[in-house]
């Protein structure tokens, strides 16, 4: 795969828990670590893998790639390769909804690293002043690129939102049911005009900052990674809950896993064979052709 890739593995319960609480007309803004948001908001594997490989049939005709994938048909306003760069966009999307009388809610996904950006505080101030239907979802995976978050974040992250009078919540981002329960409540309240809200989701990225970040023991211990894999994996733990409750069997879960893996493999194979965009597309879409 060409270029930079930032894996979402380990954080699945965040995207799934939140996006399951949204309608197709609700909007999200995503991040450089955005594959999970894209899938959870309804993306099709084939178009997605085509985009990741820079192919013509990709969501953005190969012009966006992993860090810019957008799927407006499902309300995904796009991943953003500027850390914190989409916070204005999400807030503006909420302003549109409110002004134009739509009931859609916008969720702004961002990482703990983005909480260091000034833009966040400017737009949270305005979102609070104007009671906008936006939910700021901070995926705190403990690492701001190659640095521990506690080295870059002073005080409390939720307290920063509270300073603007925004109700802020902290939730276990590995527990999909807890995330979804909170998201459902906040989305419903947003639709009633009670937004904005802020959620800090404690989660973990299994890989490094990007796929090439392999020798990372200088900032993160292997033992720590092992422990999260073994005890805090969101998919395994949800599976265990389903079987414990008698809602599913181990065989059912394995069948679902196998089906998803096969779908992904088919999509990857399709994308590998798919056409690259024609060279004539290089200067297409710089501007909208206004009739």
């Amino acid at each position, binding site marked *: 795969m060409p270029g930079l890739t930032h894996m979402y593995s380990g954080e699945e319960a965040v995207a799934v828990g939140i996006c399951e609480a949204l309608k197709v007309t609700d909007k999200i803004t995503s991040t450089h670590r955005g594959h999970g948001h894209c899938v959870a908001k309804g993306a099709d594997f084939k178009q997605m893998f085509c985009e990741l490989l820079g192919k013509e049939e990709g969501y953005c005709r190969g012009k966006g790639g992993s860090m810019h994938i957008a799927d407006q048909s499902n309300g995904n306003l796009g991943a953003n390769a*500027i850390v914190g760069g989409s916070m204005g*966009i999400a807030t503006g999307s909420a302003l549109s909804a409110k002004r134009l009388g739509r009931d859609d809610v916008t969720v702004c996904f961002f990482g703990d690293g983005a909480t260091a950006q000034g833009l966040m505080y*400017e737009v949270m101030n305005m979102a609070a002043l104007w009671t906008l239907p936006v939910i700021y979802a901070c995926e705190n995976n403990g690492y701001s690129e190659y640095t521990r978050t506690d080295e870059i974040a002073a005080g409390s992250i939720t307290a920063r939102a509270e300073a603007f009078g925004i109700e802020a919540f902290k939730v276990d981002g590995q527990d999909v049911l807890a995330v979804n329960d909170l998201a459902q409540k906040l989305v419903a309240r947003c639709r009633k005009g009670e937004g904005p809200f802020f959620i800090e989701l404690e989660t973990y990225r299994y890989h490094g900052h990007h796929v090439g970040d392999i020798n990372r023991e200088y900032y993160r211990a292997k033992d720590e990674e092992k422990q999260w894999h073994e005890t805090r994996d969101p998919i395994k733990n949800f599976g265990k809950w389903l079987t414990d409750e008698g809602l599913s069997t181990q065989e059912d879960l394995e069948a679902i896993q196998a089906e998803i893996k096969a779908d992904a493999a088919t999509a990857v194979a399709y994308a590998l064979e798919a056409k690259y965009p024609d060279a004539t597309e290089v200067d297409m879409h710089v501007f909208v052709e206004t009739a």
Partner: protein
Amino acid sequence: MREITLSTAVNEAIAEEMRRDETIFLIGEDVAEAGTPFKITSGLVEEFGTDRVIDTPIAEPGFMGIAVGAAMTGSRPIVDLMFGDFIFLIMDQLCNQAAKTHYMSGGKLNVPLVLRTNMGATRRSAAQHSQSLHAIVAHIPGLKVAMPSSALEAKGLLKTAIRDNNPVVIFEDKLMYQDKAEVPEGELLIPFGVANVKREGSDITLVGTSSMVQVAEKAAEILAAEGISAEVIDPRTIVPLDMDTINNSVRKTSRCIVIDEGHQSFGITSEIASRIMEQSFYHLDGPVIRMGAMDVPIPFSPALEDITVPTPEGVVAVARRLMAGEMINVS
């Protein structure tokens, strides 16, 4: 025909478009009751309410980002950036987000947004309130740039900008807000990418942008008295740029001075001069001359500030030397 100020022309354009299209809103610092420091948007909040004329905190990146997101989701925001110098504060939202969204999404998302801001020195406002930064914006693919040279263009270009489905940045010269010009009542749309031949001439072409059109026109009058016939061209938009009109003029006159209030180096004058050189070289009888603002931060002292920008007298002096076959800008 009635004459109105550039300020009134802008106000009219916004009001007319807001009456036509409910999705348009105005956002920026002190745009509502205060009507901006230049009193350009006065009266709009009384007609359209605070829901559509939105005062923001002093947070340029924030409200610019909000406008980008609103534009992507069915609104058509007009952003008021109080001083052009503040464009450096919003560069990420303008250049990394607004400019690239349509392209990066493969044409799926649009950002129909207008950023109104200003330019122009000699207002004794010093280095952080006097810059003319349109070249920086014009450098970024995906952004259109309009530069009205009078109240007429201010209205016609702004209305066209508001209806454009791309991000458009309009630079108004803040020293021209009280200048009057004939502006017809009612609908007025000036297309982008169509230069205006302000004055016809046969000896030398003066391409000027924004207030430098007036400078060129004054220079042309002085030159006419000396028997030099100058043609004055106002590109009106620099992205898109109407090179056909400029080339046609230069091929006729064989000499050209490009005048713009941005810094001379790496600026609009350089770009237009290069294109003339590439496209009309064999029609030229002399080098194409750039006249921009001096490559210095704009100084406060009136004694210094006035030296930094092109003047009619300066243009006349260069034109005379060009006509005499002298080399200019050789250092």
